[in-house]
């Protein structure tokens, strides 16, 4: 029995972290030499952690219920608590109606977007952060833009429509580029860097036709990374079949994708674009497209709605045009050299991470 007690004492001190360093080293040695003991101890510590976690959660839930009771007591209006059968069915019916409404709003959005791009197959990759994806309208893959809040105008400001895209630095002192459609109609724009920090940004210049926007981080002392931008802008159009990769933020984590140039002109023969075979999801709008030598050749901007891997990207030529078109007081020190050329892919990605980030857009 003493041994049983000892193992629980040991497990308790392990779980609470109160075990002295010297004992810990000794214990680790013992566990290595005696796997049966190690397994037993592991079971004990796991169970203790579960007991503690479960207890903590129960206390928290009890507190929440208490808070809730107080709140509803404070705002008590006499209401009948019983729900007649009929209203139960009504509830289910209204859930179905809600879903139908969302679907029809999605369709409306599809039509609205496609009329601007003049076709049914082009979908921008801006991402509504709270979007809901649904399979029943698979042909209309434009569902990215479902406006779930369209029917709830009276929710708190936190529930405002919010979009996210990807941006990449163009100078180390705060200028960056994303798609124009990401920023369109924004009240405020923030970037969210890899360290999880938000920085407010403003629009410097844009071209709605080619769908690129130049922005700057407000904070004067802001720098994206330690050194200059590691990639340079390609001045000539890249060759058919060139291998390319991109880094973007379909979620909060930076995501890598690779592919190749499948046509030198983009959607409907648009010479300012490329067509790529490269998987991209919503949220990756504005992501840089880089070739093997570290040249920035394009910016992800849209995809073909009906295929999984076809993506359109605005060429760096269009970006250079936009950059030449900025007001005189804006001084852009563009990257001249490119420090990615001789690195392998992992190293290239590592170097680029600080210069690629998520762009968050808030709207009323």
């Amino acid at each position, binding site marked *: *029995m003493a041994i*049983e*007690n000892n193992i*629980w*004492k040991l497990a308790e001190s392990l779980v609470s972290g109160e075990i002295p360093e010297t004992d810990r080293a000794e214990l680790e040695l013992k566990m290595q030499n005696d796997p049966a003991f190690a397994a037993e101890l592991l*079971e*004990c510590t796991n*169970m*203790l952690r*579960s*007991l*503690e*976690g*479960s*207890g*903590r*959660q*129960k*206390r*928290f*839930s009890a*507190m*929440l*219920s208490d*808070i*809730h009771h107080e*709140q509803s007591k404070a705002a008590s209006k006499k209401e009948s608590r019983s*729900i007649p059968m009929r209203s139960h069915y009504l*509830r*289910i019916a*209204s*859930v*179905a*109606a*809600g*879903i139908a409404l969302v679907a029809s709003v999605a369709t409306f959005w599809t039509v609205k977007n496609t009329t601007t791009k003049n076709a049914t197959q082009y979908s921008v990759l801006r991402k509504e*952060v*709270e979007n*809901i*994806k*649904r*399979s*029943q309208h698979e042909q209309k893959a434009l569902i990215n833009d479902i406006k*779930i809040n369209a*029917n*709830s105008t*009276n*929710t*708190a400001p*936190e*529930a405002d429509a*919010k979009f996210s895209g990807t941006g990449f630095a163009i100078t180390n002192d705060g200028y960056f580029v994303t798609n124009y459609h990401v920023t369109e109609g924004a009240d405020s724009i923030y970037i*969210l860097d890899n360290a*999880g*920090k*938000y920085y407010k940004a403003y629009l410097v210049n844009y071209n709605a036709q080619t769908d690129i926007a130049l922005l700057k981080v407000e904070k004067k002392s802001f720098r994206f990374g330690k050194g200059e931008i590691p990639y340079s802008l390609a001045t000539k159009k890249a060759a058919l079949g060139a291998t390319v990769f991109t880094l973007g933020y379909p979620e*909060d984590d930076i995501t890598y994708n690779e592919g190749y140039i499948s046509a030198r002109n983009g959607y409907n023969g648009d010479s300012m674009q490329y067509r790529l075979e490269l998987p991209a999801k919503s949220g990756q709008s504005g992501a840089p497209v880089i070739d093997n030598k570290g040249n920035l050749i394009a910016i992800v901007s849209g995809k073909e709605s009906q295929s999984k891997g076809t993506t359109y990207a605005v060429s760096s030529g269009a970006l250079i045009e936009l950059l030449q078109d900025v007001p005189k007081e804006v001084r852009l020190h563009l990257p001249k050299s490119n420090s990615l050329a001789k690195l392998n892919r992992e190293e290239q990605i590592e170097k680029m991470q600080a210069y690629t980030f998520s762009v968050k857009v808030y709207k009323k």
Partner: protein
Amino acid sequence: MQNPIDIEQQLLAELAGGGRKATEQVYKQYYKMVTVWIQQNGGSEEDAADIYQEAVTVLFEKAQSEDFRLTCKIGTYLFAVGKHLWYKKVQQIQKGPGRLGDDEGADWAYEDDIKSHQERESHYAQLDSSLDQLGEPCRSLLKAFYQQDKSMIEIAAEFGYTNPDNAKTQKYKCLMRLRKIFYGVQANENI
């Protein structure tokens, strides 16, 4: 001036520690936003309150881990998780054909958090049922210690042990028995 993200992080740290004030502040601040949405999407007032409480619990669990860092505002998180939990519930109510496929949830926001929440729930439920099979006084003793957060001194007084050390010895015996039942249950479920 404190940065708003730091303020939220501070609030979350207090919430994670079970602080009543911080929890109350968070709970009240986003209550309307989430519950109104659920009611607009077919939930009753009670459904909305239940889902909201669950969402706050998911946040609480997530905030427990040491490497936890906020990647969005608390309100955004609660709204996304609440919405997701509600859609899962609707899915359960109407498992008809053509509705939200089972794999559809896969790319929703914070899917991982909700998955681990649900796994944890079922794990805790197993633990609770093991506790219930334990018999007295073990069941009450372990509940007093782990769920009601009572000290060994209080427990010794309440259960009539002459001193806290005796109560502790009894607790270890109880843990030993619980372990047999708990892992026995798990082993059976794995077959």
